């Protein structure tokens, strides 16, 4: 049985990813309750909410990273381009190739900058040197890191600064050309200048990528996203266009949250 390519089925559906009726438990504790959310293609969706509200869990459902958490259990349906990503014919590694992820803490591989960017390509058997060189240059330019590192591609990625490392991790994810990018508080460990750079990048990247970003920084959500979702205690409280969300929130608890009345 050959797994169908994920992007082929049902292109008529408007949403890139649709999460419907999802419940998640860690052992006996339920963390997401009957949650449904649609992710618009080629746009930035920000997920905000207080700590422990389940926003990271929701994000990690979309590339099935939660499969790796012992004791995690899930019910409900998540479709990408109309296809159930938890279906029996889906190869998880194929899915993750289509859905890249950038983590909260920069986690470059110990090894050269070049090896970091090409890892995702090499594990798929793309080893042609000229191709790799081109791809490394292209993705590093895309994240505005090329000028800083072009003379030291063979040196360790661990010698880069935190901001550079995070941009490298973004480049590493972009190198395999994912259609969706998941970002888990990508700027939380960075200083204001590097944060601004990452935010700028996010806005640029949405031309080709669907971006879902978890953040606890409401200004960041306001600056970068097109759609904002507010999660509280494992439930989706509000989902709206970012402009409407921050100026005219419907739910009183959203209002309380964005005005800082509770954390």
């Amino acid at each position, binding site marked *: 049985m050959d797994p169908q390519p994920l992007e082929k089925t049902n292109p008529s559906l408007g949403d890139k990813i649709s999460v419907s009726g999802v419940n998640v438990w860690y052992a006996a504790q339920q963390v997401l309750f009957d949650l449904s959310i649609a992710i618009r293609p080629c746009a930035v969706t920000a997920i905000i909410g207080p700590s422990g509200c389940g926003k990271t869990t929701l994000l990690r459902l979309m590339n099935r990273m939660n499969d790796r958490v012992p004791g995690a259990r899930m019910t409900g349906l998540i479709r990408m381009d109309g296809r159930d990503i938890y279906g029996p014919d889906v190869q998880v*590694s194929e899915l*993750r190739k289509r859905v890249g992820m950038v983590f909260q803490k920069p986690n470059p591989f110990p090894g050269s900058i070049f090896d970091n960017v090409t890892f995702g390509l090499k*594990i798929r058997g793309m080893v042609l040197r000229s191709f790799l060189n081109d791809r490394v240059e292209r993705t590093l330019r895309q994240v505005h890191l090329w000028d800083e590192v072009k003379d030291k591609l063979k*040196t360790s990625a661990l010698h880069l600064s935190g901001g550079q490392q995070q941009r490298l991790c973004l480049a590493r994810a972009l190198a*395999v050309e994912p259609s969706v990018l998941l970002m888990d508080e990508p700027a939380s460990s960075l200083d204001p200048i590097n944060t601004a750079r990452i935010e700028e990048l996010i806005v640029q990247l949405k031309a080709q990528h669907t971006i879902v970003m978890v953040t606890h920084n409401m200004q960041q959500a306001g600056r970068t996203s097109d759609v904002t979702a507010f999660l509280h205690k494992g439930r989706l409280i509000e989902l709206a266009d970012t402009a409407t969300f921050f100026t005219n929130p419907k739910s009183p608890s959203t209002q309380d949250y964005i005005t800082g009345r509770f954390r």
Partner: protein
Amino acid sequence: MRPFSLFAFFERMEHGLAQLVRGGLGLAVRLMTMTIILLALVWLGYLFWIGKARLNTEFLFGFNSVVADKAGVYPALMGSLWLLLMVFLLSFLPGLAIAVHLERGHTSRRAKHFISLNLSNLAGVPSVVYGLAGLELFARQLDLGICLLSASLTLSLMALPTVIITCREAIRRVPAELEDGAVALGATPLQALWFQILPAAFPGILSGVMLSISRIVGEAAPLLVLGAVAFVPFAPSSVWDYFTLLPVQIFFWSNQSQPDFAPNAAAAVVILLGITLIFHLLALWIRNRWKKRILL
């Protein structure tokens, strides 16, 4: 009177300790350390001095003899080198595989706990017991006889618990973020293991394995039980050959009633220590090269 407080007690104690250190305790500790190192060096120098007459190529490449001056260490040296290689081959890969399985495989927590407990117990079993087990299992039941292979298997069995424990530690020290990063790029668990986790854990794995194996190869007791004797007139040329080893040779020479054999024993000790030293330096070199390759 103030009530007793552990906080205040610790503070006073630390204060007092700091004063003691300033008042000469630090110096005393340093002196003691230096004395121990010096004693070890003196002992090594003494061995050198005793054995210096025998530390030549004739001794190194000669065969054993009942005449002390004519006796050489070649069969024992080759036996030890063979054994070193065999134990490395037989315990490294299985040990690593078991460690990976325990750390990354789908083993229930209960089974893991049970296995860990048994591994630490096995690591503490006296070597003589391993010798007896090897004699019965390999030499007799599997009918391999008393040969290099059964000796290697016995010592590998003895090295295995320590190898597994050190490999597990090394793998566990690799941060989980590394695997997350690899898997999030679409690497399968095996790819993440092979291309990211094992290379990052390799320096730790190597030093752990080298340490336990070079320790094992210095053992005489299990092999004496297994039936190794000192007087073997040839160097082993296959794993089925009869063998002798440096520790066994040292044991027999130092047990001889004639004092003429003392220099032989001393010289053999120096050679054994030399092998261990070379082995460790080699491990250090590989380790540093690897770190440079990975981290640059």
